[in-house]
């Protein structure tokens, strides 16, 4: 290999693509490199469930032959990646992070896996996750068959979840990108805590066919990457209508950064809740606003008054209990890692249908009002999280109280809005802080443009943990 190996771990997709096309490395060499790193570093961070070496080497050989023959599938061709272990992969276990399902094998491949293969990307690992995507109300980091997700920046801290392995593996340079899923924060949380870019696409942008369902009206799949630009490249490969998932949008998606502007944005700034954030989070957000003011006009906004938290609570608990009912009824939940997940599913089984429908009726009104607000802006910015990642040995209730979701997180997820988080500094215990940009439904490219412009003038996304 002619490429400097020390730079590979944290190279972006575009950088790796250039090395491949200049003949400075090969897909097979990249696969060996990342598998070695997953074994040495990824496992130490509890980020790995299964390393798919045989499949990866076969796919690498194919990519090598195709590239040599001039058959270029695009920017992901020959690039290794990891997938959250809730995506079905034929012949390879798909555990949903749950001990009782450690031998579960599902087929056919999830649509996302299939599309990434068609784009030439190479699956090297199924990555760790919180058991059942956190659907039973876990209250601590140790809630997965692989153990607590560990943060690459501070190994006494949590990686975030539920896409814990996706966050820490990208943050630790074990894969160039990973796929995660978000029902209510599960992409933005690990991406923000691990100091990487994480994109929650508009609901319906990416097919969930072959993904574990937790909440049919809230589940989204999206990429975790080194940069916002990489998130766009991956979204381009996985987005689009899919007859196997009726929730997918009819509109075709294309990532075209050359067509987007890089300044002159109009951004709303949400200060709600910032006063309660940790001091470093507040300071970093304030500095970020200064930086954003060079590329955007900023206006203070407030969210319309809706009961976001209670709506999210009823909808997730009800849909989650229905989606996971067989595991609850069979008693398999008693084999889960976190003791609170043994009984966390029962309350959701008792939610009256009228309560669920009331939440969905309010949700409909909320979506209309939120759209009116978001239509005025290229995005609304807010700290990704008020607190940096929690210590591994602390319950969430003890660390951050019983409030699980910020209003913006609940509102954005309930309305299916796209959001991206990017690192914007460091907070207590040397842990990353982040800023999120939330956009109007369908405006994935607009928030990617804002994020790219922010990253073009800052270097937080280039910082590396010492591992």
């Amino acid at each position, binding site marked *: 290999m002619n490429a400097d190996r020390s730079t590979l771990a944290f190279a972006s997709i575009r950088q790796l693509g250039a090395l491949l096309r200049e003949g400075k490395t090969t897909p097979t060499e990249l696969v060996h490199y990342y598998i070695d790193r997953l074994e040495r570093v990824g496992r130490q961070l509890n980020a790995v469930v299964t390393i798919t070496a045989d499949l990866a080497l076969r796919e690498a050989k194919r990519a090598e032959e195709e590239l040599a023959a001039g058959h270029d599938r695009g920017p992901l061709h020959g690039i290794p990646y990891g997938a959250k272990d809730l995506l079905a992969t034929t012949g390879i276990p798909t555990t949903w992070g749950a001990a009782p399902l450690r031998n579960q094998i599902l087929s056919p491949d999830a649509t996302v896996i299939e599309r990434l293969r068609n784009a030439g990307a190479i699956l090297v690992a199924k990555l760790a996750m919180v058991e059942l995507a956190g659907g039973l109300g876990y209250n601590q980091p140790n809630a997965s068959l692989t153990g607590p997700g560990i943060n690459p920046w501070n190994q006494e801290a949590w990686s975030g979840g539920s896409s814990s392995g996706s966050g820490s593996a990208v943050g630790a340079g074990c894969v160039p990108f990973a796929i995660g899923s978000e029902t209510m924060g599960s992409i933005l949380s690990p991406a923000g805590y691990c100091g990487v870019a994480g994109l929650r696409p508009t609901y319906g942008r990416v097919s969930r066919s072959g993904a574990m369902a937790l909440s049919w009206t809230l589940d989204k799949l999206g990429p975790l990457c080194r940069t916002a630009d990489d998130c766009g490249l991956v979204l381009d490969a996985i987005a689009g209508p899919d007859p196997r998932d009726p929730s997918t949008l009819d509109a075709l998606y294309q990532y075209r950064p050359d067509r987007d502007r890089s300044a002159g944005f109009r951004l709303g700034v949400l200060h709600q809740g910032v006063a309660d954030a940790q001091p470093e989070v507040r300071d970093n957000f304030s500095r970020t606003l200064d930086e954003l003011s060079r590329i955007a006009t900023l206006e203070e906004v407030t969210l319309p008054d*809706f009961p976001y938290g209670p709506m999210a*609570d009823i909808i997730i608990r009800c849909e989650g209990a229905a989606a996971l009912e067989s595991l609850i009824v069979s*008693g398999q939940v008693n084999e889960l890692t976190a003791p609170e997940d043994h009984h966390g599913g029962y309350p959701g089984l008792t939610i009256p249908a009228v309560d669920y429908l009331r939440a969905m009726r309010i949700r409909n009104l909320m979506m209309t009002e939120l759209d009116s607000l978001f239509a005025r802006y290229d995005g609304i910015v807010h700290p990704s999280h008020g607190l940096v990642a929690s210590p591994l040995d602390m319950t969430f209730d003890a660390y951050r109280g019983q409030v699980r979701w910020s209003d913006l997180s609940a509102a954005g997820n309930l309305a299916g809005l796209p959001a991206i988080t990017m690192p914007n500094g460091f907070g207590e215990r040397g842990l990353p802080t982040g800023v999120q940009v939330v956009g109007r439904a369908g405006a994935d490219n607009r928030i990617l443009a804002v994020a790219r412009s922010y990253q073009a003038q800052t270097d937080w996304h280039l910082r590396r943990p010492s591992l």
Partner: protein
Amino acid sequence: MSERDTQGADPIVDLRLTYIDQRFPGRLSDDQRQQVRQRLLKLHESASVLERFPLENAHEPAPVFHPTRKEQE
């Protein structure tokens, strides 16, 4: 229908807990049962907040129902 009052939630919460006990006899320890009860109380509080939100008869839920028609082969 009158608004649910969180202060008076206990009988409803206990009824829901009884439903769980009946459906899953012997499944919960005393400690687990207490935690399930706490969670039921929170769900009841969430539902009570939503019940105070003004809705009109015509306000439909978020997913719009579409009848299915499979194309004939």
